């Protein structure tokens, strides 16, 4: 039995401490230790992207990160997107553009879209396609996902007051 390690991980702005086995995956830390089941377990082989979270500003597949590797880092999961009961513009856009059907890939898609738009406020279609190329969707054929990300970009580029009104 390996020695447990004490870790402190900030998740959606809140620090969480735990003693974990070194082999615990970040995915299971989020889902089982913290009960944040929005981050989905899909292929478990680094292929599908359903478990995508944002770690220190960059996307990461939570099935391929050890919880101990996330010690001291900031994690954003899909649960952290909505603020004060209001959906994030990226979530709004997926809703409006039918960017999902079964919804299994959606948390990962949302995090990839969010990370892209944080870096690039006005991505081209190619840049959007590249940004979601590590996320597999078996329902939409991706087109509505791309439309959703473009809509989110437009929405987020509007002046703040107008964008708030729109969301209400």
């Amino acid at each position, binding site marked *: *039995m390996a*020695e447990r390690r004490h870790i402190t991980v900030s998740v959606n702005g809140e620090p969480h401490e735990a003693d974990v086995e070194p*082999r615990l995956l970040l995915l299971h830390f989020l889902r089982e230790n913290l009960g944040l089941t929005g981050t989905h377990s899909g292929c478990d*082989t680094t292929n599908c992207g359903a478990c995508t979270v944002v770690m220190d500003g960059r*996307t990461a597949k939570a099935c391929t990160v050890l919880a*101990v590797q996330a010690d001291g880092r900031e994690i954003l999961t899909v649960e952290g997107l909505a603020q004060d009961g209001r959906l994030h513009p990226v979530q709004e856009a997926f809703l409006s553009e039918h960017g999902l059907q079964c919804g299994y890939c959606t948390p990962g898609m949302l995090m*990839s879209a969010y990370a892209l738009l944080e870096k690039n406020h006005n991505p081209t279609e190619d840049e959007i396609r590249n940004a979601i190329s*590590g996320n597999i969707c078996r329902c939409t054929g991706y087109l509505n996902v791309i439309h959703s990300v473009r809509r989110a970009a437009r929405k987020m580029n509007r002046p703040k007051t107008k964008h708030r009104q729109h969301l209400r």
Partner: protein
Amino acid sequence: MLPPAFDYAAPRSLSEAVDLLKSRGEGAKVIAGGQSLIPLLKLRLAAPSLLVDIGRIPGLEYIRESEGFLRMGALTRMADVEASPLLGKKYLMIHDASKAIADPIVRNLGTVGGNVSHGDPANDLPAVMLALDAEFAALGPLGPRTIAARDFFLDTYTVALGHDEILTELRVPLPPPRSGGAYLKVEQKVADFATAGAAVFLQLNPKGECAGAGIGLTAAGPKAIKAAKAEEALVGRKATDPEAVKNAAALAADASDPASDIRGTAEYKRDLIRLLVARGVERAYGRAKGGAG
């Protein structure tokens, strides 16, 4: 899937990391980004008793030119290679590869050091480093040493690093004038292992003939392959001479030893390698001529 149980240490210096590796013998393994090792652990293809996480050691993430080399720190992430203006302007073969490795999410954590020291013949940087005649710096209990890329890749998942040695830097000779390179890869879908890939580097003389050539092959056998005979066949010939290109591409295919699997038969892959080398020569020539790197 849970990896087997292991102990974990996150040293803050390279010397501390080397000491840890030495203390545990063959049972210790280095982890950096973990994008290759964690899947392997989950499949129980590796079962180290101790993981030494070098990911928190400062000073190993950089891309710079100095003292005759382009130097990339072992912890440089693939996403930073892709975003580097220097590599995008002057080292197009490395830049090509950075866009072809896995997917953008994996590239956020995957490191250049991991990509070569993992020893997977389907990884992309090994062929690139062979084509560029790169060398690797490593640190072990006896101090630092340098290993030429051509001596580094020994077999599948086996490289010329001792169990207590850590790869610290990738060094690519500064490109001479009138040189350029390209990396081409065929994969069934984003992030699948390569069906095959070819890295081609050309240096032209003022007459437009090849003064030097470097060719590395991905997923073309049990280890990354340097197609030396194909390289020699190009020297002194024009890269626009169809016979010379055809000959070199055929020699590269001969040097390969791919396995039949779900991505294709060995015969298909050898033909693919022939095609990728020929196209790589064409693209590398265009870049060398244009002075684009």
